[in-house]
């Protein structure tokens, strides 16, 4: 008690232009009733009126607690900062600072009440509602403090607040740029960025003098420019992870009823610990948010499922993405039913919208918007809604099927249907005694804040995306990387993207794979753990578009009709994005980059049209060159090519491809032994793996095999791959190859199957017309299978002719066919050369690795600093992972 009685509070009063009013401010401060010691620091901001000097010197002479500092005009921020610095230096024992503008007044209890609350709450600052006089206006600023509202809605704390001295000791100051009219808002954002939070106090107020014209009014006239300034200055706060983190703690987007447990989890980020509320509390929150939406929050979406379902979804790494789909669907129809499927080899999220009256099977999870529940109650439509628990569902619905490999552990099935759990909540809400009184607002000051339950919409507007990916900053803080691919099958381009993801993850990034334009992906064991989260977004994202042309090449413009909101909602806020051939994402990159994301574009191959015009992804990307911080290519050749189009070398990382699968030491040893031993004079084994199409030179392969057969060269040939069949079966390459005794088999994707084929073969034949840097070469070399490939694309960077493979010069088709047939015939006889080439291939493969290939890019990525506001530990007030330990309440 004695300590408290001796606490020193400083009242800081900037002064400019209020010579005639400052007496009132001073007198009101001097009339404060407090057990603490008070010091009043008036910071005169170069006010040219000498009256100020006379007034203040008189006051200072009569009241020793009044300190006056004169300074040159520096604007409101500068004047306040001078006061702060004075307090820190001259009144170092001060515990808190209360800012009182020279034209305002405090009530006798204001300082004492606010300081008591500051001490009890351990917040960074305590603020009041605002009541103005002269021009009467008042506003209620909410029963709880929200950083989310403070960042994206409006300034909810006047400078007339009691601020812990720790805030200033942590370095928070006012912005002194007078062009920014929101220096007070900017100050609070700085405090939030340093990990401090506010605390409302409705038990006192100060008297805010409002005249017909004010600085606040003036600043609001140029609000967009001021807002833009705030966003630029506090990028870390305005990014998706920070805002979603605030949302998670302050206005969680989802309520999840765990069937049979009588509790609701409330959360936004499903990977962070959720809050928990009982049914009773949920009912209170629901009706509270109806009557006083600025004071009480109820999540805008409600889900119901069993704990086992939740566990499975959490392990699927698809849960954040699933929630995005559910949000979108719940806004298109009344109810969403989710069905989980165990699929060993793929992950997918597929859905269909069903009309009213559709018949539904059992669901594992049910999802609705809270708005629908409110309408059901208001319209007495409980019977209509209850049909979700029966076979025929009268609300419109969507059925979403999510497939992924379930863990091997046995599943415990819930005995309570999620629909029933949801209906129980709705019944409890409908019959609650709170329902009749819910329409009365008890808080008498007019509402100033947006509805807490609508904050998710404000968040969408702020980020320009919808829905907003519900992923916040995680403890760490780990940097985040998103890898974008247009599809996720077994193609080389996506395997390389996975490899990039794996390298980033191994180097400390939290990795997200976005499959944009497809709702499924195949499971590749080799890269299955490369990503922490997987996301699919199919609708509204075209694989190609030509709304603009750059050097005669197609690119997608901002005006292109696609789901921009969906894309931006998913992609905003990452520390790094690696765009791997998602054409639709290029136009977003400049926006994401200006918001703080580092952008990289991964390119693999220059394609050709049927008329041999160079085309493809590199051109669509070069059109957006300035929007990317880095380019990754699979070859030095492509690097030079990009440079020729104006991409600086310093921005390009050539990443030589490595094998898309690894083999264990035992298999490697076996293969090496076998290759050394050779197979005597047995027929030479030729392997072709790839699409049976023109790009891959299937016609050349056919011609070569025909010549070898004609010449009687002893070979066994195998072709692994698929083709697009035409109506005429006789034109099928499969048929034609089989006629040459080629063993034709459908494509294989599993690493062990590819390895088995490569281990079988002596030579991998690749007569492609164009290529990037095919993974297959590295994979063949890894197994001692000698690649024989046309020298197109960056093949020359992977094969040293005569050492670890054979290069066939790019020429007319007939010449290539002859050259390949001649080489194979030679090697069929010269098994020693073949053995040497196989050993060379093995040696090359031994030196090749993804880690080595990505090393430069990873080094560049390591320069990316995570942009996150400081988090403080609630219990100790310590900054997480930092030595400074201000003793104020903090953010979890």
């Amino acid at each position: 008690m004695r300590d408290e009685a001796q606490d020193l509070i400083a009242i800081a009063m900037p002064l400019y232009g209020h010579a005639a009013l400052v007496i009132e401010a001073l007198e009101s401060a001097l009339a404060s009733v407090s057990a603490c010691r008070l010091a009043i620091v008036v910071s005169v901001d170069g006010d040219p009126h000498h009256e100020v000097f006379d007034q203040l010197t008189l006051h200072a002479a009569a009241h020793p607690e009044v300190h006056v500092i004169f300074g040159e005009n520096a604007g409101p921020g500068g004047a306040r900062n001078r006061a702060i610095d004075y307090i820190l230096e001259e009144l170092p024992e001060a515990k808190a600072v209360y800012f009182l503008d020279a034209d305002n007044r405090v009530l006798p209890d204001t300082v004492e009440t606010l300081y008591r609350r500051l001490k009890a709450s351990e917040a960074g600052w305590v603020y009041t509602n605002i009541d103005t006089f002269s021009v009467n206006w008042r506003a209620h600023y909410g029963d709880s403090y929200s950083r989310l509202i403070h960042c994206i809605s409006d300034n909810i704390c006047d400078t007339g607040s009691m601020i812990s001295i720790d805030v200033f000791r942590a370095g928070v100051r006012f912005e002194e740029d007078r062009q920014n009219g929101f220096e007070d808002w900017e100050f609070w954002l700085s405090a939030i960025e340093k990990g401090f939070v506010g605390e409302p106090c409705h038990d006192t107020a100060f008297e805010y003098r409002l005249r017909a014209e004010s600085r606040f009014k003036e600043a609001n006239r140029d609000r967009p420019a001021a807002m833009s300034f705030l966003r630029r200055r506090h990028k870390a706060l305005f990014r998706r992870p920070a805002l979603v983190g605030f949302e998670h703690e302050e206005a969680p987007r989802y309520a999840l009823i765990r069937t049979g447990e009588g509790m609701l989890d409330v959360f936004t980020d499903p990977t962070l610990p959720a809050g928990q509320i009982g049914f009773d509390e949920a009912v209170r929150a629901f009706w509270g948010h109806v009557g006083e939406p600025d004071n009480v929050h109820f999540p805008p979406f409600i889900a119901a499922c069993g704990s086992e379902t939740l566990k499975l979804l959490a392990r699927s790494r698809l849960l954040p993405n699933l929630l995005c789909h559910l949000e979108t669907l719940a806004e298109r129809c009344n109810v969403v039913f989710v069905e989980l499927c165990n699929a060993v080899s793929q992950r997918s999220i597929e859905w269909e919208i069903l009309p009213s009256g559709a018949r539904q099977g059992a669901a594992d999870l049910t999802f609705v918007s809270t708005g629908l529940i409110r309408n059901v109650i208001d319209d007495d439509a409980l019977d209509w809604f209850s049909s979700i628990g029966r076979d025929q569902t009268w609300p419109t619905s969507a059925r979403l099927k999510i497939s992924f490999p379930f863990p091997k552990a046995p599943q415990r099935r819930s005995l309570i249907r999620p629909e029933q759990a949801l209906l129980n909540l709705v019944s409890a809400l409908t019959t609650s005694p709170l329902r009749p009184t819910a329409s009365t607002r008890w808080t008498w000051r007019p509402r100033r804040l947006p509805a807490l339950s609508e904050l998710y919409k404000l968040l969408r507007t702020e980020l320009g995306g919808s829905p907003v990916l519900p992923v916040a900053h995680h403890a760490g803080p780990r940097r985040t990387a998103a890898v974008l691919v247009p599809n996720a099958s077994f193609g080389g381009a996506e395997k390389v993207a996975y490899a990039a993801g794996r390298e980033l993850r191994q180097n400390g990034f939290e990795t997200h794979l976005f499959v944009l334009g497809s709702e499924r992906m195949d499971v590749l064991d080799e890269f299955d753990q490369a990503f922490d989260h997987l996301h699919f977004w199919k609708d509204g994202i075209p694989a190609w578009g030509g709304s603009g042309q750059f050097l005669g090449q197609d690119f997608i413009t901002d005006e292109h009709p696609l789901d921009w909101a969906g894309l931006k909602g998913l992609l905003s806020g990452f520390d790094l994005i690696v765009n791997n051939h998602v054409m639709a994402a290029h136009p977003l990159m400049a926006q994401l980059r200006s918001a703080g994301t580092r952008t990289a574009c991964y390119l693999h191959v220059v394609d050709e049209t049927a008329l041999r015009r160079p085309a493809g992804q590199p051109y669509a990307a070069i059109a957006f060159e300035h929007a990317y911080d880095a380019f990754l290519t699979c070859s030095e050749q492509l690097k030079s090519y990009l440079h020729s189009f104006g991409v600086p070398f310093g921005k390009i990382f050539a990443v030589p491809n490595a094998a898309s699968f690894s083999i264990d030491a035992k298999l490697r040893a076996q293969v090496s032994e076998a290759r050394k031993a050779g197979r005597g004079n047995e027929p030479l084994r030729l392997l072709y793996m790839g699409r049976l199409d023109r790009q891959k030179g299937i016609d050349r392969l056919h011609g070569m095999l025909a010549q070898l057969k004609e010449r009687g060269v002893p070979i066994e040939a195998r072709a692994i791959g698929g083709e697009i069949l035409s109506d005429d079966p006789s034109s099928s390459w499969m048929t034609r190859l089989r006629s040459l005794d080629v063993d034709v088999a459908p494509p294989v994707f599993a690493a062990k199957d590819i390895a088995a084929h490569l281990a079988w073969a002596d030579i991998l034949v690749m007569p492609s017309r164009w290529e990037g840097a095919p993974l297959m070469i590295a994979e063949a070399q890894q197994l001692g299978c000698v690649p024989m490939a046309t020298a197109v694309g960056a093949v020359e960077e992977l094969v040293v002719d005569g050492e670890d493979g054979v290069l066939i010069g790019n020429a007319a088709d007939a010449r290539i066919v002859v050259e390949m047939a001649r080489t194979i015939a030679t090697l069929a006889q010269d098994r020693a050369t073949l053995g040497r080439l196989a050993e060379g291939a093995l040696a090359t493969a031994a030196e090749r690795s993804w880690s080595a290939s990505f090393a430069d890019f990873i080094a560049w990525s390591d320069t990316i600093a995570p942009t996150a506001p400081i988090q403080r530990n609630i219990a100790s007030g310590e900054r997480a992972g930092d030595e400074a330990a201000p003793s104020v309440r903090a953010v979890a």
Partner: protein
Amino acid sequence: MRGTFPLIGVAASDAGSKALQAALKRLRKIGSLPDVPVIRLQEAALASDAELVVQVLEGGLGRLSRHMAGANTELATLRRERETLFENYRALENAFHARNWDTVSEVFGHGPFIDPKDQGLAALLRETEIVQLFPVSSYAVSGFAVHVRDIPADETGQLVVTLDYVESGEGIAEWLIPYDSITEGWNFFSLPKACDGSPRTLRLKISATGGLPPELSLGHVITNERYAAQARMPHADLDMRPLALRIFTGLPGARPTALPNVFTPSTVISGRKVEDYRLPVELLRAVANVSLSPIEPSFPTVRFLELEDAIVCHPLSEGITAGAVRRVVAPGTARISARAVIDHPEGKPGTVGLMLVPLSADIRKQIEALADGRSLPPTTFFSGWTEITAEQPIDINFMLEIPTSRTMDLVVLSKAATNSVDFAWLKVFNFRLVKYLEKSPVREVANA
């Protein structure tokens, strides 16, 4: 010194004068400072001139500063009053133009909800107070009504109702309503004047002194905890429920036609802070016998009853029985109330009273003056004698015209009313004091 106040540069040498001029030139960048004249003291008269400067700085300037500070305080008050007058004038003018002469309008109403499970608030009202915030702005509020659902028969006591502003803590009015004045249903409390000035939050506090008080009605359950009725002690009935409450604007004193009664304030507190406190048991335990009687009974006439938190003050057939509790009445106390009872069915009647005595005074001498019928010094306050009969509890209410300015002793007094004091086991309990705070406490000066 004309034109130089309050700053003057004083130089005792040419070099000093030059240096001072240069420094003052740099200071001109700070626009607020007037031009500061420099006076060059001449060598010859240096000692006397310097003395003059010291005199001016230490004497006249200080006095002038203090005088101006007082004037400024007064000015600030006047400006605030002018604002209120302007606002009120405009409101009156608006009402005049609009012919808006409704005597009273209901601006908020929340009806009673009788839950069969309710335990009742009676005990709570006696032990502590119930606090209810008004869910409307204070502006123009002229009265309110609370609902009573049951009035126990044959109970005496008072409901103590106070209204103040939350944000400033300023009191508005206090009502002391005897139980028998209260009716079942709505009871209207009229404010001394309609609330004006800045709209603020009104806070209603209700407590009771005496026997079982009337049962206040609660309303329906609501979601906003801040506006639910609150008490310092947990109570099952108060779970997120406000008092049944109606709030009115209009002419102060005008009773809404549908309501049966109107209570005007017992005390207009306007502007002062009110603190209502009860004497803690540990202080009562220290009661000392300061009786003035020739009789020395074989039993203790003054003592503290542990189980009942009451002071026994058994009258004697001659003289005055007195129990003093030292240093318990805080400065600013304006009212003391307590309850007394003769706790025996055959107890003979007596009289009871309370006295406040300054710490410096001799208590026995004051009692002696009282016994002799002499007038008490103006620094001592006496409640007067109240008659009391067996098993009929009474309330002693002791209102001071001017709140006490210093800490005082509380003395409980009793004397016989008839020839006999047999079984007159007089107990005084439930001491409740109301303090008005008007002046700022003296604060330490920072860095002083």
